[in-house]
């Protein structure tokens, strides 16, 4: 049965003026919001300076936004210390990465060719960033920064953590007590720790643990640390998914003559992984935000690159807020987009095509 849409007046009444408390709330909150919005609009648009003109920005005295700071510094904010003339390379790499992500987000593209495509794509992206072949100048990883670094850390982090997390989750159901106990310790240890000490560990301690002559790039060390960290959280989500599949399913598989490995791979895991899509997406969103912490150990990801762009420049230093708002908007779009996608894909997976 379909009801006719309510008339606009009725809709207004029901949503804003249902009774006295509701009416009062609407009036008070409404006027506060209007005043704030008007001020924000005046600051951000009407009185704002959009040209990279330091004199005009100074004359504003913070009465309006100085978006000129973005126009002046966007190359450093987006690409960090990457050599200026070669910045088309990280730009191209970022676009490639984003189109790979876009392609992978569509369930119609979840085919056998997707993993090899990622392998090829990532190799191309890394080659493009690093250079040293085909006439491209070598750019060491300590010069990488900005948006491509944030994206690479997130994608490689979650991509590396996922298989590890599946193994940990399976291992925690192992019949062998030693494996179960060791993995449980690992997961609880990592989950009890903040990420920052783990990053310190990667930057201070990893080099001491390796034999002389073997060194790893700080980026690789940080990436490994992020993977190991994220895997502990992800494994808990995946374990929940595996436990949500009734044992009868695996037993039925065994009864049909599958080996326990086949039953796991063909019956339990596909259902379990489908069930954990929302929590995996949550972890991905969390990781995207947490990559900003690499700033603390001196990598220039999006957040670090902003400080790099503004902290050392006495002229533009006072306009940090505009810079923060700019990268805040980038992070927000990424996180909000991912969370909406998560809702969509969850619905899509629940209803069989």
């Amino acid at each position, binding site marked *: 049965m379909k009801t006719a849409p309510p008339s606009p007046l009725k809709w207004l009444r029901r949503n804003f003026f249902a009774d006295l*408390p509701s009416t009062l709330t609407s009036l008070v*909150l409404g006027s506060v919001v209007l005043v704030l919005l008007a001020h924000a609009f005046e600051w951000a648009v009407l009185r704002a300076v959009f040209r990279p003109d330091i004199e005009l920005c100074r004359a504003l005295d*913070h009465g309006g936004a100085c978006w000129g700071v973005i126009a002046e510094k966007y190359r450093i904010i987006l690409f960090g210390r990457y050599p200026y003339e070669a910045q088309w390379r990280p730009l191209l790499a970022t676009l490639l990465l984003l189109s790979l992500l876009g392609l992978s987000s569509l369930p119609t593209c979840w085919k056998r060719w997707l993993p090899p495509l990622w392998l090829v794509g990532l190799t191309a992206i890394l080659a493009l960033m690093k250079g040293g072949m085909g006439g491209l100048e070598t750019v060491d990883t300590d010069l990488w920064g900005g948006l491509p670094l944030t994206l690479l850390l997130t994608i490689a982090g979650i991509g590396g953590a996922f298989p590890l997390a599946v193994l940990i989750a399976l291992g925690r159901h192992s019949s062998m*007590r030693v*494996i179960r106990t060791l993995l449980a310790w690992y997961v609880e240890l990592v989950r009890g720790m903040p990420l920052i*000490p783990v990053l310190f560990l990667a930057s201070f301690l990893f080099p001491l643990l390796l*034999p002389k002559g073997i060194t790893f790039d700080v980026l690789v060390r940080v990436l490994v640390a992020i993977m190991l960290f994220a895997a502990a959280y992800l494994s808990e989500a995946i374990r929940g998914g595996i436990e949500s599949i009734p044992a009868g399913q695996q037993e039925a598989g065994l009864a049909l003559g599958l080996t*326990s*490995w086949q039953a796991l791979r063909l019956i339990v895991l596909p259902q379990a992984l489908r069930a954990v899509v929302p929590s995996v997406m949550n972890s991905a969103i969390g990781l995207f935000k947490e990559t900003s912490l690499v*700033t603390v150990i001196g990598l220039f990801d999006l957040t670090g690159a902003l400080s790099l762009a503004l902290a050392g420049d006495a002229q533009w230093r006072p306009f940090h807020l505009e810079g923060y708002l700019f990268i805040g908007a980038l992070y927000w779009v990424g996180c909000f987009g991912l969370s909406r996608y998560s809702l969509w894909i969850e619905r899509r997976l629940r209803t069989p095509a």
Partner: protein
Amino acid sequence: MEQGRPHVRPADPLSKARSPAAALAVQCGIVAILLVLLWLLFGVTTTNLHERGIQSGFDFLLQPAGFGIGEGVFAFDSGDAYWRAFAAGLANSLRVAIPGIALATLIGTLIGIGRLSANLLLRGLCAAYVETFRNIPLLLQLLVWYFLLTDLLPEPLAAWQPLPHTYLGKNGLAIPWLELPDFTINWPMPTEFGFSGGAMLTPEYLALLLGLCCYTAAYIAETVRSGIQSISAGQVLAASALGLSSRQTLWLIQIPQSVPLVAPPLTNQYLNLIKNSSLAVAIGYPDLVSISNTTINQTGRALECLTILVAIYLLLSLATSALIRRLGKP
């Protein structure tokens, strides 16, 4: 159609059908491999430390630290030992985490309930709050709070007075303070260089507190909202059949029943807040992590400092969960 018994393969190494002796052997093997790896790691690390001239051991904890800590619960100066520095750092972490948990719970609960309001404007504003604070990295939020508190607030002499005898300026918030032994009130006064008297809250502390509160409150709001919404629809219908208004249903039926449902995920949020207080290092608040960072830089004893850090955070996590479980029991 093909007839016959399905082909039964022998159990693979992962399955449970294995002799206990073999399982025991495999497990012993794993432990042995781990021990050998640890032993190798230990050997390599000691050689490395030796070659770089870094001493190891926990004896440094008794040596004087040589750096001061600007603020804290108890006084600390550069002559005090490292172990006291760690204690001061832990106290500073708790000084921000405990009020942070209380405030975040308050704000988060209000916003979570607000998201279920019948009023679209209130509902929308609460949703906007959650989506804004949840989708921006906490580090960035802290940097913004810190910038607002240090760069955009007025100089001490022109400080704002949000309440009588309370001053908010570039160098922090000064509030009247009760001097305990003689029960006199110490009133703060603005001077050219800062505030004298009263109790001082530094911009670093305020930024961390505000940032942690607002961020965690967004998550708590979602926890509270889903807790309330998970009360079965039948209960709501029953309430309305009894003649309760929707507001009464919310406060008398839905919220009281959701408390036990919300408690466990709330504990997780509290643990997250405690862990997130480590972001203090980014804005220069001397919490546990930033103290151990300084200590590592001075002594080079990364292994020891990180071990202490891990141990303290694990203990904090365990203590918090235990405390909340205790409080949750009638």
